[in-house]
């Protein structure tokens, strides 16, 4: 082997250091605004936070106290409803897209998913408004949940498809060789093996849906009172932020920040919980070989 000359080695090392440095700088550039936003939300939001902020209903301008209990419940209901609708559709369609990518239906599914995920959420809102709200002549929590499921389905299909494809074919062959039918193989071997990815996909979808304000303007509409009836209009956190932040009142601006902080924390908590569950499960049953 030829020994590298000193100058050449120096050159190689400095180029390496430079590239590494560049990559580092850009990574910092990405992380900084993220931390900055988080820090800003915490700083602006925490003064208005208190225990009663979670338990009380909104108060009119100028009346001290008041909280976001209605929006908290509303967000949980609409996002929950959205997940219930979207999860089976998204996961099953994702499995189909992964298993039969070349069939006409598979191609149409993948193309459709790409197109739908590019549709702005406000357009989804108007669509749901025309499709559900207008015929019923009534804003409702249900229509909010449905529009959120429109937003979640493409994300779920895409992540499920990608995660199912990552499962080694040998697992599929192993199950089929034992005489398992294709659906049985998908449900009892492939989906459990892809669970980590599926949970990540679900988290992405939930985080996205939980933060949607625009389609809520046309569907759930908002409601200053506590509502548990899915047929009635309901408040949601992002919509609350929109209302508070676009108001001219200093007091409501603080509440908008606090609501944003609650929303971010909720999504974060959900994420951490899901990851802990997955971690616990893989520790017991092992990750993919």
């Amino acid at each position: 082997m030829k020994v590298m000359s000193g100058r050449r080695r120096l050159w190689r090392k400095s180029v390496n250091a430079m590239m590494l440095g560049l990559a580092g700088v850009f990574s910092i550039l990405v992380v900084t605004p993220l931390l900055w936003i988080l820090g800003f939300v915490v700083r602006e939001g925490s003064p208005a936070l208190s225990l009663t902020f979670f338990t009380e209903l909104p108060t009119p301008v100028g009346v001290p106290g008041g909280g976001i209990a209605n929006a908290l419940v509303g967000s949980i209901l609409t996002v929950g409803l959205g997940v219930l609708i979207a999860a089976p559709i998204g996961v099953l369609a994702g499995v189909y897209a992964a298993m039969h990518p070349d069939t006409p239906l598979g191609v149409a599914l993948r193309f459709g998913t790409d197109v739908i995920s590019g549709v702005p959420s406000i357009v989804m809102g108007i669509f749901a408004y025309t499709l559900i709200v207008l015929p019923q002549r009534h804003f409702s929590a249900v229509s909010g949940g449905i529009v959120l499921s429109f937003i979640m389905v493409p994300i779920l299909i895409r992540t499920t498809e990608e995660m199912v494809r990552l499962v080694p074919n040998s697992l599929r062959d192993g199950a089929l060789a034992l005489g398992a039918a294709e659906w049985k193989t998908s449900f009892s071997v492939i989906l459990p093996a892809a669970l980590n990815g599926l949970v990540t996909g679900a988290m992405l979808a939930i985080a996205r849906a939980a933060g949607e304000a625009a389609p809520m303007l046309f569907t759930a509409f908002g409601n200053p009172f506590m509502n548990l009836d899915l047929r009635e209009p309901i408040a949601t956190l992002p919509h609350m932020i929109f209302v508070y932040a676009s108001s001219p009142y200093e007091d409501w601006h603080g509440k908008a920040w606090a609501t944003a902080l609650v929303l971010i924390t909720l999504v974060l908590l959900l994420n951490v919980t899901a990851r802990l569950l997955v971690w616990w499960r893989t520790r017991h049953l092992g990750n993919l070989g």
Partner: protein
Amino acid sequence: MDIPAPVDVRPRVAQIGDGTVPVKTEARDLSVFYRDFKAITQVNLPVYAQKITAIIGPSGCGKSTLLRAFNRMNDLVRGSRVEGQLYLDGQPLYDSQVDVVDVRRRIGMVFQRANPFPKSIYDNVAFGPRLYGVGGGSTLDALVEKSLRQAALWDEVKDKLHQSGLSLSGGQQQRLCIARAIAVEPEVILMDEPASALDPISTLRIEELMHDIAKDYTIIIVTHNMQQAARVSDFTGMMMIDDHRAGRLIEFDQTQVIFTNPKDKRTEDYVTGRFG
């Protein structure tokens, strides 16, 4: 190289020593296509009951394609198609009346790389029986234990049945896969280079295990390793590709004959290590 004539091996029984052995499963004039490509052509291979039949030959000669035809795993490859026929106990396997699930239940398979499911050791073995409706409880427990014992794995795992199958070593994982295949009580077990990814000691254990289970099962093994074929098998089929790049069975006989007195010059060259 001229195109070898198809080898016809049609006797329904084989004469070994004083006794005769019945044919368990058999390929007759079998050709497998992947779209326009003919992967194997005109294969006639008898597989005798409760014997180990080895398929040897150089890389890419269609050994695995032939093996996977026996439990119709090639069906999973889009564009694959079969001419000729495979028989199990005289019944055709490629027939519109035949349920492929039934074929795979009766003809199990062990793959080149151990592929335990990301489930517990117990659930891996119980996977097949559960498919066929063996409920939980003592019946299933007994079946799992029996299968693990037959696969010579029971003593190593009996205290950790509920740990992940992936926590085992490579050799243990492969024996787990054998236990998993045995658990559905198939009649034939196909093995696609089951020891090629294992160390010599694990390989030896697998070979001993094959010997033990051959009392109850008919085994077909594909192997690159000629010593392995010579050690474990009773019959050996030698495959090679012809001028059209299609695999052919060029010789089939008792293993002893193939390795000591082959009729075909190419088999002799191959088993003596002159090529391949």
